[in-house]
């Protein structure tokens, strides 16, 4: 239990530090690199029970990335699109589950010709919402939780600032809104298009 509290504190501090760094550079100076990207891909769910009910799904990920130091950027993103329906419980009640999150990550990258591989470390504030409603039951699980992000990928230049972005990331998100611990962690495999330019 103590370990969990400690981890929670660490996560929160981590997010605050990145938020501050981001705020410092939120209005980038002239000449700063800015990248706008939209990615789409698959999202896995680790929890076997949730996976059985709702299955894995797909997410989209618009993001903005600002280079703050050489080979180092800060990325803010929104992950959405995981909205699944499934039958739950003894009576197979119809239900929906939505998971989304606001993410902030530090990106360490290096450019090789037109390839820009990167690693990503960050955190996110995730929202998960389960609705069950029928003639007999009506309830909603609507909670939030901070999670960790670890990822990597490569951006490939295409044409005049346009680039192809391929990436993989793992989000660690274990929640326990009530008595049952649920592991919403999972790997995302994403691909998309980005546009980079100098301010």
């Amino acid at each position, binding site marked *: 239990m103590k370990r969990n509290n400690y981890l929670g504190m660490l996560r929160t501090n981590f997010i605050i530090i990145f938020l501050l760094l981001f705020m410092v550079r939120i209005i980038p100076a002239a000449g700063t690199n800015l990248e706008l990207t939209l990615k789409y891909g698959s999202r896995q769910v680790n929890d076997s029970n949730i996976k059985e009910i709702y299955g894995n799904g797909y997410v989209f990920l618009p993001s903005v990335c600002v280079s703050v130091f050489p080979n180092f950027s800060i990325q803010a993103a929104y992950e959405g699109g995981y909205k699944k329906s499934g039958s*739950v*419980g003894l009576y197979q009640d119809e239900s929906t589950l939505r998971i989304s999150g606001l993410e902030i990550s530090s990106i360490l990258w290096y450019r090789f010709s037109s390839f820009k591989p990167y690693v990503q470390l960050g955190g996110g504030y995730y929202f998960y919402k389960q609705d069950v409603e029928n003639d007999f039951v009506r309830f909603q699980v609507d909670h939030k939780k901070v999670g960790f992000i670890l990822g990597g990928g490569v951006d490939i230049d295409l044409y005049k600032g346009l680039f192809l972005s391929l990436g993989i990331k793992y989000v660690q998100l274990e929640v326990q809104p009530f008595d049952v611990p649920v592991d919403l962690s999972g790997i995302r495999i994403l691909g998309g298009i980005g546009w980079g330019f100098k301010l």
Partner: protein
Amino acid sequence: MRKIIKKILNLCLVLIISTAGFSGQNNKISPHLSKLIKQKGENTVITAWVYFKDKGPDLNQKIEQARQSFNPRVQQRRWRHRHIYPTADVFDVPVNEEYLVLLKEHVSRIRHRSRWLNAVSVETEGANIAGIAVLPFVKKIDKVRSFIFRDPVRGEPFKLNLESMQPVPAHIYDYGPSYNQVQQINVPALHDRGYSGKGVLMCFLDGGFNNLTHESLFPLNILDTWDFVNEDPNVSDQPGQMGNGDHGTNTLSAAAGFMPGKLIGPAFGADFILGKTENSEWERHIEEDDWIAGAEWADSLGADIISSSLGYREEFTHGEQDYTWEDMDGETTIVTKGASIAASRGILIVNSAGNEGNIPAPQNTLVAPADASSVLAVGAVDPSGQRTGFSSVGPTADGRIKPDVMAQGSSVYAAGVNGVSDYEYVYGTSFSCPLTAGTAALLLEVHPDWTSLELMEAIKMTANNSSSPNNKIGWGIVDAEAASEYIFKKVYAPKDFSVRRLEDNYGFFIQYVDRLSWAANPANQDNIQFYALSARRLEDENAVFVQIAELDAQTFSYDSRGLLGSETFLYRLTAVDKEGIESNPVYARQ
């Protein structure tokens, strides 16, 4: 070429048929029996049940023949129950003799024939079982289970605290040291009105009945006796025979002993038949086929009540886990099936709840057939009315409240076996059972038109915990006088009301569901308009029953959903007829 193909096809066909036949034979042999043969070897003689597929041709004619063969007592009892049970049915038809002729070639001895189970128990070498399985009329072969029924360790005899005693009201009999055990269940009040069980036939199935010349047993009207273990009419111990007959002497005297100033049981005026169905020592060795044979014998002689101070549950005894707490669901063990069929003949079965209350168990410590819904399971209280620790607890595996009622099972004064004037204090639900059975006999004398179900209802609904029954003392301590004055409502309570808690996993949280089920009471004859279901939260002492549903007459289950794991409820169900009259409630709790 064609011939070769034909040969191959024929070979395949033979293989398919022989494989199917082999697996079919194997399916007939129960895993328990296969295991027993493996353990003991094929040359060892084993005892097995052989079940038959049917009772042969002309079944309707055979049922009619069975009906005509009933003796007057049986006819009377069946007629009394004609509104709820058939006056004769397939269970009354004997096992088909032609099957027995063919079976005899494979067995060394047929121990008992059971028309209820459509089976025979046999002794045969393990090697013969496969041959029996091939017989086309054989449905299943299973082992006959044997058990040990433990009586609790005897404690110090109860000593009356004369200083704190209230003045004893005057009764026509002097009960002597047995006063407390009959007064606690209010029997003397009925004795004072002249009732003693006259005209009621009680059957005792027990471990033997020594010393029947005891001064308290001598006056009893014993009509018949049979030793099902040794197959002779002598139910006392005999040299070279198996058994120890002290226990039956104790139970019979608790129910019906009559020696003023020393011992008076509730039903000393009844008629009796005594069956020795246990190969008994102090821890009594019991074989289930003996009990079934005894119960069928009681039925054929017209018994109204069977008092059976036994119990089957192997995990407590041999530790082999053949029967566990999960099998105490009212329909699994052989004796429970037998007891349920006996009840459907109109016999009231009164059975001890068991002496395993001190043993930790996941849900219940009941012993079969106390788990049957139609069996009145009796637990034990001490002379002051407190439950004894050894008295087995419910609920049944399918969630019904057990035991049903309580009577004294500690320091019960009973006839001994060392001389005509020997008495002793005995302990166990074995003795609360005959006290209750004797009370039932009194009630049947008072109300000869009551059915066995009505007897059960009257006894339970007037016991001292009937407003809030639970799984330790059931409906509480019996009150004979109140039961005799019980007025039945026009509408009968639903039967077999039970609750089972299920887990309802919604992914992020778990809720619980109490699945309630019940059965229509056939005595209501389609008069029911609806069932009213209410619940009382048990965590809150001040909580009252709140109606949760009204269900139409064709609905026999209800799921109480959305419960937390910590919430427990007592459920109450009544049937309401078309005139708005409500039945007595039945209760179920986790």
